[in-house]
């Protein structure tokens, strides 16, 4: 039964409001797409955390039992170097998720600061930051990544740094646009008139209103981080002594996994990347739907 409510003059239902009435998180849990995505993510996070417990042995242990097909002993088989694919995949989740989320958080943080400063101070600050943003946005990402990755010492921190450097601009643009529209709202002017300081206005008045956009760009950055890390590592520009999904694919390709028919060395890591990215994308679209109720899937009415 649906409750009947009478049209009320004094509380018009503006679409943006319900998001705040119940927390974004609660609504995400109620959304089927988001639930699928969050469950998948939680599962991967759990696997990553528990990798030392779950993984059958040291993933990097090289021995001569190479290229075994999946079996009871090795659920996902072994690589050409005798490494257990299941162990590699589980341990790979750690690095990939860690890099992905660190990149996401760091790039979003940079983007927030740039976006807010740009929108709040306007004028020259805005012009300069917008120029910088657009330059970074237009610079071809992967080529820049390759150049940067090649000249910095390898290692997870380099990969993260490089991805943050090349990944923040897109988010900054989106966040700036959003922050600028909020900057123009009267409540910001009201805060100024009340006597609030700029930093407080930026972070306490403007930022909380961008929660969903921040969330969306954050998820986007994480997807970018995971994908770009894999791309870099696949090209051999990552740190090949780290176990991650990207390096797993790099080694698989190096060992000619597809050519020798050792598909099991190649498929799991790629699938994991796709699943995590898919999960993040699902949550992302769910956030879109929640903040923009028009996007919600139309339900077929019964009777």
């Amino acid at each position, binding site marked *: 039964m649906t409750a009947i409510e009478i049209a009320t003059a004094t509380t018009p239902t503006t679409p943006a409001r319900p998001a705040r009435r119940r927390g974004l998180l609660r609504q995400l849990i109620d959304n089927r797409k988001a639930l699928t995505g969050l469950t998948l993510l939680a599962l991967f996070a759990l696997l990553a955390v528990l990798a030392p417990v779950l993984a059958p042995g040291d993933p990097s242990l*090289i*021995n001569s039992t190479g*290229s075994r097909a999946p079996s009871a002993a090795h659920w996902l088989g072994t690589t*050409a170097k005798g490494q257990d694919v299941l162990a590699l995949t589980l341990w790979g989740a750690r690095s990939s998720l860690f890099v992905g989320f660190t990149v996401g958080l760091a790039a979003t943080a940079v983007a927030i600061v740039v976006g807010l400063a740009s929108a709040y101070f306007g004028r020259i600050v805005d012009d300069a930051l917008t120029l910088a943003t657009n330059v970074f946005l237009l610079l071809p990402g992967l080529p820049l990544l390759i150049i940067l990755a090649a*000249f910095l010492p390898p290692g997870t921190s380099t990969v993260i740094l490089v991805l943050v450097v090349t990944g923040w601009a897109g988010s900054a643009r989106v966040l700036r646009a959003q922050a600028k529209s909020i900057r123009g709202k009267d409540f910001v002017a009201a805060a100024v008139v009340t006597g609030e300081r700029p930093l407080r206005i930026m972070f306490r008045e403007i930022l909380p209103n961008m929660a969903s956009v921040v969330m969306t760009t954050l998820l986007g950055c994480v997807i970018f981080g995971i994908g770009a890390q894999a791309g870099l590592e696949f090209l051999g520009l990552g*740190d090949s*002594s780290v176990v991650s999904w990207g390096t797993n694919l790099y080694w698989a390709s190096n060992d*000619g996994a597809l*050519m020798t028919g050792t598909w099991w060395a190649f498929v799991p890591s790629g699938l994991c990347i796709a699943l995590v990215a898919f999960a993040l994308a699902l949550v992302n679209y769910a956030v879109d739907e929640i903040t923009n109720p028009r996007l919600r899937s139309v339900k077929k009415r019964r009777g």
Partner: protein
Amino acid sequence: TGGSGAAGAGDTSGNQLLTIPREDLATFTRNFNPLSPQAAPMTLQAVYEPLVVHSMADGKDTPWLAAKWEQAKDGKSLTFTLREGVKWSDGQALTADDVVYTFQLQKKVLGGFDYLDKVTAVDAHTVKFSFNKPFSPAFFEIGGHYILPKHIWSKVKDPAKFTNPNPVATGPYTKIEKFQSQSYELHKNPDYWQPAKQQIAGIRMLAFSGNDSANVAFTNGEVDWTQSFIPDIEKSFVAKDKKHNHYWFPATGAMINWQLNTTKAPFNDPAVRKALSTAIDRDQITKVAMNGYAEPADCTGLARTYDKWRDTSLAASCTWTKYDTDAAAKALDAAGYKESGGKRLLKNGKPFTLDISVGSASSDWISVANIIKQDLAKVGITATVKTPDWSAVVNSYEQGTFDTGIVWSNNGATPYEYFRGVMSTVMVKPVGEKATENYHRYGDKKADKLIDGFAAAPDEPSQREQMNGLQKLYDEEAPVVPLFTGPEWGAYTDARFTGWPTEKNPYATLGNRNGSTILVLTSLKPVKG
């Protein structure tokens, strides 16, 4: 394999082209200048020819543009007599002047040949090379050097930057056809001096963006002869067509060493170097990391590659290249590096740790390093594998700032270059000064004497004597930790061409970028019908 469209596939008309992939060149540039380090493939194999062809496979020297040669008794000069009737592909005859000009040009543009005093044309077909010291390795360097036509190159303004798009040369395949960025063809030189050996219609080069794509083409039967690294070749290649697909990986390349920076403690202690060497499992390394394509080294440093020079009795008696974790642990204990709580300690009480640097591009060596790391852990040593870009690695080698690293060694027809590279004091540079070889900075005056003695030795028995001395010294000091031989990879399909070098008929290696490649090109016959 439809749609792949490679004309070579399945073609047995007799006019099929010998198709060779280059996995390291995604695209070609039309540059057939042999002075250029990036000359298009086959410039030095099918286009230009040397005086003598040396085969690393059987160690034989085949007279080529030179019909015969003679070394002076004092070892200070070398005289080549050119073959009669050799013509450049524009019809002009090859003369001694061409040879003289070639070496002048080489010295002018690229330098080198410090020992070479002068080159003189004794007559139209005789060239004499005079040295400033007795130097027997010169024969291989000079004999293997390509020869350029003077009448063409003397007119070129800037030979270093000349791209030589239509080369005039003496080789069997000098006509460049259908040059495109990813493929080109070399057709017959109509004036070749041994037309009977031009049995194949021509060569087609294909460009690939890496091992993967080249190997796909190869295992698919679309190319004839590859030198790229093919993982698990039995399964991925031979099994596809047992009848036609073959490979042969003779150990001819230089030794791959694990070098320890001897300016740093504890690597300055030969006992430590030997103990570390004993701790690593070379069988595992060659089998797993190197796909079984390489052979484990022994403590002469000459295994397989230089079997001819190897002191087999020494090799049989020494043990520090045999895998034995317990012995290694004991040796370390004895040298004063005690174990405590599963971790080995340095003499100063700090944990025994080391870095192994390998360039990021060398995935196989990274695996080698990882296995070393695994093995060292068993004796309580913590190793860290560092894989920055090769340029950074080489930089740390050159400056002497590295701990340990996996490194190639100098290659030559004799072990002369190898020992000079790992033991001579001449090449040792202090830390911080750029070294171009002997990165591990080990030098021994005794070695210098033996090395010089080898270069000046007038005949083989006396050379052998010096060589044995060097091996003994090597065994005592372990200047580097030899790991395995660098194999010369090569695989082919004889569906379209026959006459390949094999283990039974090792007239050349199966490499298609070295000096003996010309022997293969002049031995292959197309399959007809």
